[in-house]
Structure formats: structure tokens, C-alpha cells
């Protein structure tokens, strides 16, 4: 009997790698290399927007007049690099732990110097308004910045519905306080006196730039970014843009903001972006526009009022901004 012995080097047709697999492998390796380059700051080949945008789709009108055409910070970075100390002080803590917060149902208490105080459901607050998309720069006091496409409502439109009276000189905002849902609030040695609170002068709040955001990248705002609604005041350092708001109060006396209470010499009430006034611990002259790279850090010059001087500089006429920082 003749037994055909196949030499060990002979490959059968089934051993041939199908072209699709071969191509997939190249694509895979391309991905690995690109991912490696992404960390080093060489041009990113991976499209970070490939990370699917989470949340419910919102319908909105784009507002080019209120938008920058600077390159947007990828969704992935906007939603995984956050300061939201209610969930921990690490930048990736909010993305990891914000899921523990329930935002549905949600209500906001409105009180103080206004004609229509009360507790409003999230739906009641947003229903009368049409959503807009505004692409704003966000400058963090820590000297990094992002460009984020927000979806939301002009703050003035929302506040007017509560009919603030003539004694309403300031508006105060407060974040949810619920240690069961917010692990950062359970920390024993936190110097923050929860709940987180912020405030604006009435004319600042009524400025056309002030925005109440309920979404980003076209969908409902992720919890780590301050769901279901958060403030966006783009000419001020990021900490003024308070997240997950549960209380709005109109008042005559100036409220204190949380960071001002912790370190008044470092964080002022106004907190306007200003390259001429350094933070005591670091310079504010420049910022790292994220995503930044290791080999090519994306440094840019910081602009006064974060580049929104045209819209807001008049609010501070005659004020010494080195004193009222």
C-alpha cells in the first residue's frame, strides 16, 4: 500500500490564512501601534470618537455664534478625565463611581428672592426650552483645558422663569449631597464641607454665555460630567461650573463657593480665567489642551476670560482682578 507521506513543510490549502484574517491582523497591529503612539503624543491614529457616545439622543439647534471651531476634545477624554470630588479625587474616579448615583427622578429646589420658588422636576425645568449646542472651551484651574460640545439651555432663560426680584443680587447653586450614592462624601478626612456650592453675581448668571448643560456630544450628559444638569460658565475656571445641581437660591448677599471656603488665598469667588494672576502654587500663563502627549505636550497660551472677553469683560469694568480673582 502506498502511503503518501506529506513532508512537514507542505501546507494544505486550509493552512493558508484567509485574506480577511490577514487584513484584520494588520488592522489590529495598526491599532496597537496607534494606541502606543497616542500615549506618547505622536499623532493619534486611533479615532478616539470611535468610543460610542453613551446616553439618550437629544434634539438641538447648533449655535455657531456661541461655538469655537477649535478641535474638540474626544468624547473618551471628556468623560474619563474629570474632577468631581463627590466620587473621589482621582481623575478617573468619577468615570468609575458616578454610576452609583441615581439621576432619575431628579428635582431642583428653587428658593430665595424670587416670585416662583418651589421644587421643580427635571422635566418641568427643561420642557419649555429648546436645546442648543454650544462648543465651549473649558479651562481648569489646574492648567489643563478641553473643548466640549455641550447641549443645554441659556441659564438666563431658565432663571427668568423663577421671576427673581430686585433683591436677587446673586444666585447660589448646590450639588446633590448623598453619601450613600457619592463615595467621595463618605471620606473621613476630606476638607470639603459638603454639599459642594457655587455662586454667580446676577449679571454673570444672566450673561448670554452662561449655560445650563443637560448633554454633551449630542446625548444626555454622563453622570461623571454632572448629570442630569450642570452649569457651564466658560470664562471662569472649571470649578465654577457646578455639577448635578439640586438647589438654586436667589439672594442679596454674596454666597461663598466651596473652594473659596477651603483656600481663599488660592480660589476666589470670581475665578475668572486670567493668565496675569497666578495660582499661588502654579502659573496660569499657559494650559495643556487635552489630549496632550508626552513627546509633544499640547501647550497653548491661556487667554484672559478664556478668550470670551468680548462677551464678559464689561462685567468687571473698574474691578481690580488681582484682588477679585
Amino acid at each position, binding site marked *: 500500500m502506498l502511503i503518501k507521506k506529506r513532508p512537514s513543510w507542505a501546507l494544505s490549502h486550509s493552512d493558508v490564512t484567509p485574506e480577511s484574517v490577514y487584513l484584520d491582523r494588520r488592522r489590529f497591529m495598526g491599532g496597537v501601534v*496607534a*494606541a*502606543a*503612539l*497616542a*500615549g*506618547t*503624543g505622536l499623532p493619534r491614529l*486611533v479615532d478616539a470618537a470611535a468610543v460610542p457616545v453613551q446616553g439618550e439622543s437629544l434634539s438641538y439647534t447648533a449655535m455657531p455664534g456661541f461655538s469655537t471651531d477649535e478641535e474638540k*476634545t*474626544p468624547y473618551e*477624554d471628556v468623560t*474619563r*478625565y474629570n474632577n468631581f*470630588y463627590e466620587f473621589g*479625587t482621582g*481623575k*478617573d474616579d468619577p468615570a468609575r463611581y458616578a454610576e452609583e448615583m441615581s439621576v432619575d427622578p431628579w428635582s431642583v429646589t428653587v428658593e430665595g428672592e424670587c416670585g416662583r420658588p418651589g421644587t421643580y422636576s427635571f422635566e418641568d425645568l427643561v420642557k419649555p426650552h429648546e436645546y442648543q449646542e454650544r462648543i465651549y472651551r473649558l479651562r481648569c484651574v489646574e492648567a*489643563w483645558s478641553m473643548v466640549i460640545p455641550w447641549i443645554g439651555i441659556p441659564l438666563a432663560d431658565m432663571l427668568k422663569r423663577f421671576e427673581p426680584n430686585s433683591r436677587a443680587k446673586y444666585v447660589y447653586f448646590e450639588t446633590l449631597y448623598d453619601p450613600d450614592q457619592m463615595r*467621595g462624601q463618605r*471620606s*473621613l*478626612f*476630606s*476638607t*470639603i464641607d459638603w454639599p459642594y456650592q457655587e455662586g454667580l453675581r446676577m449679571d454673570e448668571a444672566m450673561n448670554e454665555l452662561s449655560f445650563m448643560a443637560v448633554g454633551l456630544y449630542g446625548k444626555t450628559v454622563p453622570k461623571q460630567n454632572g448629570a442630569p444638569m450642570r452649569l457651564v460658565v466658560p470664562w471662569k475656571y472649571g470649578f465654577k461650573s457646578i455639577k448635578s445641581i439640586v438647589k438654586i437660591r436667589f439672594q442679596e448677599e454674596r454666597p461663598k463657593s466651596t473652594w473659596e471656603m*477651603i483656600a481663599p488665598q488660592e480660589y476666589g469667588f470670581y475665578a475668572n480665567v486670567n493668565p496675569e494672576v*497666578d495660582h*499661588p*502654587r*502654579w*502659573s496660569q*500663563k*499657559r494650559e*495643556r489642551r*487635552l*489630549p*496632550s*502627549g*508626552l513627546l509633544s*505636550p499640547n*501647550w497653548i497660551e491661556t487667554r484672559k476670560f478664556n478668550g470670551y472677553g468680548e462677551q464678559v469683560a464689561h462685567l468687571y469694568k473698574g474691578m481690580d482682578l488681582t484682588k477679585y480673582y
Partner: protein
Amino acid sequence: MALPMPAFKGLVFLLALIPLLWLVVRIVTGSLGPDPGQEVTEALGLAAFQLLIVTLGMTPLSRLFKWQGWIRVRRMLGLFAFFYACLHLMAFLQFILGWTDLWATFTRRPYIILGSLAFLLLLPMAITSTRGMMQRLGKRWKPLHRLVYPAVLLAWLHFLWQSRSDITEMLVYGLVIAFLLALRVRWFGWRSLIPLRKPGA
């Protein structure tokens, strides 16, 4: 202990390299996030601080376990702490400052000054860590190397000053350092903590 000295030293060497290797892995896989410079700088500084504390623990460990092996890896650990401190400083200059604003940063920012002082205290210890220097310095070597105590305290303050709202982590580090220093006081007296004291004085 059954572990032969060369194997133990090799093991400690590899363990001390882990922070660096982990950083390399994160750089290569692009998992440092959108602000990698900040991340790298912080990770290197933390590694330096942690290794400095580990170095302080070697004398207590050798007394507790009555084994000289711990003392024999002390110099290597101290040099690793210095190595990470050097990388941390370089990363800070390159990634955070971009070599600008140097004068203001190193003269006006208190936490930077504290960190720099800690580094300056490590420097003479690293230089005099060789056997030759040890012999040349003789009795003066030990008091010089007590600089490690102010160095670790300065490094701790350097971190504490930067914690913005939650000091839990730094309190834990502080307790560990206090415990290690307390052991020294108990065994060798207060004066064993004072650097640069003349031998016999």
C-alpha cells in the same frame, strides 16, 4: 531566612523596578489618559516617596527578624528612591514646566521648594553611597546619611501641600513615617535622628 543573599537582592531589585516598568507598559499601551505628562510626573514622584519610606523600614525589619539581609538591600533601595526622584524632577521640568517659568517656580512655590529641598538632601547621600566614600568618610558617614529623616519629612510635606481636599492618603503615609521614626527613637534615642551631628558628640 532561607533565601540566599544574591537571590534576595535580585528579587528586591526587580520589585523596585516595578513602578518604572508599569509606567512603560502604560506609555506603550497608551493608557495614561489625556494628560500623560502629569500622570508620569506624579507616578515617578510617588515611587520615589514610597521607596524612601521602604528604605527607612529596613533597619526595623532587620531587628525584628534578626536578619542582616534587610540592611544589605538598604543602599539599593535608597538609590532607587534617588533614581525615581531624578526621573520625577526631569519629568516635572519637561512635561509640566516645559523648561519655562523656572525661576518663579523654584523660588515662589512652597511645595516645589520643599520637594527640591528633599531632592537636595538625597543628593549627597547618593554621592557618598559607594564603599569607597564610606571608607573615606569613616565616622562622618553615618551622621551624613541621617539626612534621610528630614528628606522623608520634606517629601511628605511636598505631597501634603498638594492634596487639595482629601488628606486621608497623606495621613496614612504620615502615620507610617511616624511609626518608623518612633521605633528609632525607642531603640537608639532621640539623638539618632539628628543628621550631621559630630560622632561621639
